[in-house]
């Protein structure tokens, strides 16, 4: 009875959708939060796959990033989620795997195209099972208006002192807002602020792993110093930055009204389309001249298989393709700023993207400090870091207080920190 109804429902849906599908055709649905990329998937990526895989059709159905987790979890619980699931890094996906909502993909042939570091964001803690095919990482740094820098005779800063000297010079000139960032949405302060400049202070992986092991604490100088720098940012942001949203900041920069934009590499596509001036990029300045430099090269996005999918075989075929060189090249060039995590030597054409990726050779890479393990409990360290970073920039909390508050929150549930 219920099967009959189900059948009737499906039939009705098919008729409504008006798709003329032959019996053996399979349609795969991808769940994703990348609604910005809808067009690229529809026009570039999916046609490239379908051209060589007759009989498999792919549909990309993104929801807004903020709702993605809630929507996806509800659909998975009830059994109406798509065949392929776009994976957030670390614990969010790990929890899905442990609840049986992501399949074990360790035996996928394409997995050999990814280093263990690339896979680490989508593995069980012991590294025995990988459950998503890595797609891309994003790199943090600063994008600047090169025309404005030339006009004011400024150079890319390499140290923190030079960085503030540049900001002072722009402020003094008065023609540009020195830096485009707001605290209304909070996450920019943490992601493009704290985790952008921080690795230079806590020495990348060294500090991140020491924090996880409980050997360092968030009240240590290495973890408070980035807040001290953020506290100085406030005066260089635009008037009313407290209510400035993320799209506000993007527009402020691309309209040429602000000179520097604390960035993630994912901005490149949008900025290329909207800015009508030359742009350059520099990595986060180091505290002292000659210091070793560190960048946040964050494993950001991957794709996995819903074990409840009736089209598992076709889905695996798609996932093998996602791990291939063809996909890596298409994706990296369709979305400059999302850098392939594969071992292939992917040629990129975008100069700004090339600049970002060149830092991998000069600096040590690390990932965002709060993502692995440390955000498993309540209060959630990542979400608290958003709040603290915004608070510090607004001057509502001192760097020391912020560090203490985060440490207390972390220690309340994380044993190695107790």
């Amino acid at each position: 009875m219920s099967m009959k109804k189900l059948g009737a429902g499906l039939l009705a849906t098919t008729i409504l959708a008006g798709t003329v599908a032959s019996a053996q055709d399979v349609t795969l649905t991808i769940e994703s939060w990348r609604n910005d990329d809808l067009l690229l998937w529809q026009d570039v990526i999916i046609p490239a796959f379908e051209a060589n895989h007759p009989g498999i059709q792919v549909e990309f159905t993104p929801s807004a990033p903020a709702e993605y987790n809630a929507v996806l979890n509800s659909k998975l619980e009830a059994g109406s989620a798509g065949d392929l699931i776009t994976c957030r890094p670390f614990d969010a996906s790990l929890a899905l795997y442990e609840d049986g909502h992501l399949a074990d993909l360790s035996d996928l042939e394409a997995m050999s195209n990814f280093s263990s570091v690339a896979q680490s964001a989508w593995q069980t803690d012991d590294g025995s099972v990988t459950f998503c095919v890595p797609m891309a990482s994003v790199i943090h740094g600063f994008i600047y208006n090169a025309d404005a820098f030339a006009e004011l005779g400024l150079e890319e800063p390499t140290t923190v002192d030079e960085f503030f000297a540049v900001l002072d010079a722009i402020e003094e000139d008065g023609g540009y807002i020195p830096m485009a960032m707001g605290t209304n949405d909070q996450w920019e302060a943490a992601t493009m602020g704290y985790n952008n400049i921080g690795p230079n202070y806590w020495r990348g992986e060294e500090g991140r792993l020491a924090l996880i092991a409980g050997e360092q604490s968030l009240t240590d100088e290495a973890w408070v110093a980035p807040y001290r720098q953020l506290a100085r940012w406030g005066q260089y942001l635009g008037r009313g930055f407290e209510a400035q949203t993320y799209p506000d900041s993007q527009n402020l920069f691309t309209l040429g009204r602000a000179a520097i934009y604390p960035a993630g590499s994912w901005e490149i596509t949008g900025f290329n389309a909207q800015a009508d001036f030359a742009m350059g990029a520099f990595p986060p300045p180091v505290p002292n001249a000659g210091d070793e430099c560190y960048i946040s090269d964050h494993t950001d996005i991957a794709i996995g298989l819903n074990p409840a999918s009736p089209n598992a075989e076709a889905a695996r075929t798609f996932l093998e393709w996602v791990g291939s060189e063809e996909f890596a090249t298409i994706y990296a060039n369709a979305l400059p700023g999302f850098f392939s995590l594969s071992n292939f030597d992917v040629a990129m054409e975008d100069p700004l993207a090339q600049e970002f990726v060149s830092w991998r050779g000069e600096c040590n890479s690390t990932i965002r400090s709060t993502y692995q393990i440390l955000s498993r409990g309540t209060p959630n360290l990542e979400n608290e870091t958003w709040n603290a970073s915004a608070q510090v920039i607004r001057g509502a909390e001192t760097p020391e207080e912020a560090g203490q508050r985060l440490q207390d929150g972390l220690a309340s549930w994380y044993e190695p920190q107790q």
Partner: protein
Amino acid sequence: MNKARRNPVNIAAAHGILILYTVIALFPVFVILINSFKTRRAIFREPLALPDADSFSTVGYETVFNQGDFFGYFQNSMIVTVASLFFILLFGAMAAFALSEYRFKGNTLMGLYLALGIMIPIRIGTVAILELMVDTGLVNTLWALILVYTAQGLPLAVFILSEFMRQVSDDLKNAGRIDGLSEYTIFFRLVLPLVRPAMATVAVFNMIPIWNDLWFPLILAPAEATKTLTLGSQVFIGQFVTDWNAVLSALGMAILPVMVLYVIFSRQLIRGITSGAVK
């Protein structure tokens, strides 16, 4: 009659207050609409200026029309809204009549039971509702939305309608009973016409959250064929969030149909209100 109620100073003051509030109410809509017809630079340079020959641009609307099937989305929204309203009004009025007209055991409790639904955010029942729809094969059909909105709208409908039905004169109903009319005839022929203003009010109040809901279309019917206008424009806004031309045009597109719908319904609403008042 009514001489005392016509005082020129009072009338000027009344118009003054109403005009002031009308300006406040319409200003943000005005800002969105004029800017949706301007170039990106002009949007930022002079947000309050009307589009002129220099700054006029429909590039935003072009982006919107090239993306997604907005007419189809609109049709889905219409079907869902009208069908839900029909069931809410019919079932709601029947239940409200039972509660306000008859004394029976558990009357107050039943009233409270029917009101429970507006006290718990229905979002938390999402997973259970979705499971129900998956089991009955209604996922990605408009019926899933119609059923949820009907259930969601009933508490408020019963609440408001029973309040109004208590004000319907008992003499009228009893006269009907003496004439040998059945309870059903009394309800459909005598009472329903008298509570038309309240029905129109309930219709307008329920229309808004149904038309504007984002959550259940996203969860229950996200397929392209069943996307509602609100969901369609939300996906669109997410995709073009920094392209303000496109965003403002999408907002304009989302505002206009509801405005037209409202103007149509509002005629009915007012006719209902006035015909109810003049007996």
